[in-house]
């Protein structure tokens, strides 16, 4: 067949058909492996999610059955009611995370918030969240302390322009992890400070500090990926969705801020960083 002159320049040097088949076969195999790994990871993720949703519901179901048992004393029935309340709180938190995840993806694609940012008293928000998690922390004699002086010194009476529900969920996720993975009888501290951060400049940093499970330094970056759970965390608490830190990071990106982690041995400090321009 005659090829017109203007097409000749784009024609690649011919490979032998054997070479081409080998190349395509190798490419095909690599894609198959990639697809199979993605499927496996997705399946694992869905199983984790299912487990996280089923476990509290199952516990609630059995507690209700025990409530109906005439042989169970009134004081124990009262404990069962508290337990049902705790499990329901866990479920609400989880489901909010999933709802948030789908909204956040859409917001990030649009590059704008679904809800309008408003000036928020972030110290009040931290105190309220600390109070919410206090009962869970108290089960293992842990304490959550808000370092109010650090907030007063850093904020100088200013508020933070943000979407309250999103930041509350991000902070809740940090607190939930701290409560889950810190040592019994330890103290979790929430504090504020100003710091200069690469690519963002001057920032307001809200930190959640705890002592307990060491985090492997080579996993620091991966911790913020969807579905990833640190190896030490998995050993201590086998079940988990691995979306809490991922969501917290997305929330901070949407606020033109960032999330960070500093670990020293068994001490971990997760940081939410807002650009100082958000102080109003």
């Amino acid at each position, binding site marked *: 067949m005659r090829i017109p002159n203007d097409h000749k320049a784009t024609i690649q040097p011919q490979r032998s058909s054997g070479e081409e088949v080998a190349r395509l076969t190798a490419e095909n195999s690599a894609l198959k492996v990639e697809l199979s790994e993605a499927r496996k990871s997705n399946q694992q993720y869905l199983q984790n999610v299912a487990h996280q949703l*089923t476990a509290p519901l*199952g516990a609630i179901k*059995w507690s209700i059955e*025990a409530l109906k*048992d005439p*042989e169970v004393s009134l004081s*124990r029935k009262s404990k069962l009611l508290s337990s049902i309340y*705790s499990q329901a709180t866990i479920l609400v938190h989880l489901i909010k995370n999933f709802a948030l995840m789908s909204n956040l993806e859409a917001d990030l694609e649009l590059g704008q918030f679904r809800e309008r940012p408003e000036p928020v008293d972030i110290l009040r928000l931290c105190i309220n969240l600390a109070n919410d998690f206090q009962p869970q922390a108290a089960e293992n004699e842990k304490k959550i302390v808000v370092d109010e002086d650090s907030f007063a010194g850093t904020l100088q009476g200013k508020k933070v322009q943000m979407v309250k529900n999103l930041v509350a969920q991000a902070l809740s996720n940090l607190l939930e992890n701290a409560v889950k993975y810190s040592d019994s009888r330890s103290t979790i501290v929430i504090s504020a400070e100003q710091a200069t951060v690469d690519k963002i400049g001057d920032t307001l940093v809200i930190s959640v500090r705890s002592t307990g499970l060491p985090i492997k330094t080579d996993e620091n970056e991966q911790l913020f990926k969807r579905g990833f759970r640190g190896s030490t965390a998995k050993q*201590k608490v*086998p079940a988990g969705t691995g979306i809490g830190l991922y969501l917290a990071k997305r929330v901070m990106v949407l606020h033109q801020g960032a999330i960070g982690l500093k670990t020293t041995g068994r001490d971990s400090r997760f940081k939410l960083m807002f650009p100082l321009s958000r102080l109003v």
Partner: protein
Amino acid sequence: MKTILFVDDEPWFHESLRYALEPKGYECLFATDMTTALDLLDTHEVAVVVTDIMMPAGTKFPNIDSQETGFHLIRKLQSERPQIAIVCLSVIGDESKIRPLRTLRLDYLRKGEVPLATVIQTIERAAGDGGERVWRFS
């Protein structure tokens, strides 16, 4: 009084079981990992171990994958303490992981899904009370 040992890192599940079993005269012990469970077995005469699958192995077994700790505990109990009856309570969704349990001498019940009364009855039978033991797998 017969003793039941619950091994699970989600101990709130067992409040309801404990409250239903104690009035029937059983003593209930709790461990949140395999190491603690085996320590308790060294110091207590236990009739039935009720175990989860996914849970921490604890300090003595750092190389056990926490996703499979229960399988290790079951194998260890069946080889070293065959007199102890085992009831496995778990919510593992992957059927292929559960299948090997069918060949072992134990009951397998889905945690939180099977009615509480069924679990109580299964534990009572495993303890040698409440009639002839029939292996349950549901």
